[in-house]
């Protein structure tokens, strides 16, 4: 089973990388970009039947830092 975990910074947490990307987009002449937030995409290939609770624990224990980040788990159709 393929699982896609998206990790993003919580609202209100300053994102210097997103800001730099934003700045670079403006430098290239793209207009109307209001905000940029950079995150992380982690793809897992796990045993079929891996429980949602186990996936959640993987995110909380390692994949995301709950102090500054949120995560979203998405099961991907094969």
């Amino acid at each position: 089973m393929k699982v896609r975990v998206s990790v993003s910074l919580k609202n209100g947490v300053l994102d210097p990388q997103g800001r730099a990307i934003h700045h670079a987009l403006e430098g290239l002449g793209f207009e109307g970009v209001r905000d940029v937030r950079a995150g992380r995409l982690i793809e897992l290939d796990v045993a079929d039947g891996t429980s949602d609770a186990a996936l959640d624990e993987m995110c909380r224990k390692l994949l995301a830092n709950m102090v500054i980040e949120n995560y979203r788990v998405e099961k991907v159709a094969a």
Partner: protein
Amino acid sequence: MSGFRSAVVTFPGSNCDRDMAVAIEQIGGGTVHRVWHGDAELPDRLDLIALPGGFSYGDYLRCGAIASRSPIMRAVVDAANRGVAVLGVCNGFQVLTEAGLLPGALMRNAGIRFVCREVPLTVETSQSLFTSGYAAGQRITLPVAHHDGNYFADDATLDRLEGEGRVAFRYADAVNGSARGIAGILNPAGNVLGMMPHPERAIEPAHGGSDGRALFESVIGALVDA
């Protein structure tokens, strides 16, 4: 001071472990054990455990994240909870926050750039195991060398740190965007200190300064006398 027992943990990618061991040995004497991240146990009867600077596991995932889940860290967390003194510098500070021994997180510097220079700091408290050799409010200079030293915690946590006298060091100038200029913090019991500046790189005049020396003298002196 020959009875002082300490350990310096080396993770894959640590690069200040030798400097840390030299500083402790020079100031405390005794035995400085070098411990590998994959070890499951620490030597017995340690007075001090140091987590050095560097780029453990290439800073993959998040700085300090993988190192904080390595086998030796379970033993370090147990020792810290038993009251053993733990000092984390730079990457070691990041490892301590990722391990949950200290609150908050260290994020990418607000200015994006890697910062490598000497910075002025204010010692915020002299009432700690690690800072008793300084005066509260004393201005010192230590080197920093980091890309991710931007301390973040929510306001309630920051208020608690300040209220409980757990901010050990503060940047005197803007360095990396850290919340309230925080450069180093203590755990509630005061036996764990995490800081981004490098005291082990400032222990003798040949380093260009020796303001880091008092930190080692404080903690080693307190523990040897105990």
